[in-house]
């Protein structure tokens, strides 16, 4: 079975799982874990978008 994800969807899946692990391991209480995990996810996602636009403009 072969799975072919686009670059963006692969990055989002990566962000989701990495953020869950970061949230659980880097904070002590449950609210902090959730906040940190959500912040990590959006940082990853926005970073991907920013890097994508940067490379697009660099290429032009």
């Amino acid at each position, binding site marked *: 079975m*072969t799975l072919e994800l686009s670059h963006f969807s692969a990055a989002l899946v990566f962000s989701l799982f990495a953020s869950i692990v970061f949230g659980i*391991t880097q904070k002590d209480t449950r609210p902090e874990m959730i906040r940190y995990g959500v912040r990590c996810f959006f940082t990853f996602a926005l970073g991907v978008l920013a890097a994508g636009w940067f490379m697009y403009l660099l290429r032009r």
Partner: protein
Amino acid sequence: MPDPAPSKSAAQPFPHLKEAAAPPQPLTLLAVITPIVGWLVPGGGHFLHRRWGRGALLALSVSSMFALGLMMQGKVYSANFGDILDVLGFVGDLGAGCLYLMTRAFDWGHPSINLATADYGTKFIIVAGLLNIISAVDAYDIAMGKKP
């Protein structure tokens, strides 16, 4: 004339660090076993400490990333002493514990990258191993009383 008494902040320049530092705990058998189990079984270290929810989420995240990496035909590194990136790739893969050992035993992985998405898959497998190592260290911190 005597010097004025030092203020509290001068005596303890970083009081928050004093509060955050946990007293040293003796090394118990559980503290030795926990990181090993946490490495072998994703989330296993947390299960040992009855952190069921955290353990389940860690197991789901690490196992899913590893499985998605294999489904994307990612490369699975074997033990080698050649290129430094290959060695580091092997170390990252090995971090997944029994997932990596099963992959090697059942020959599930791909020895080379043949598709564009396989490169993503290779990174998924490596990062799953690295995240599993972070989880095992976190379980060790729980065993040592450094984390609730």
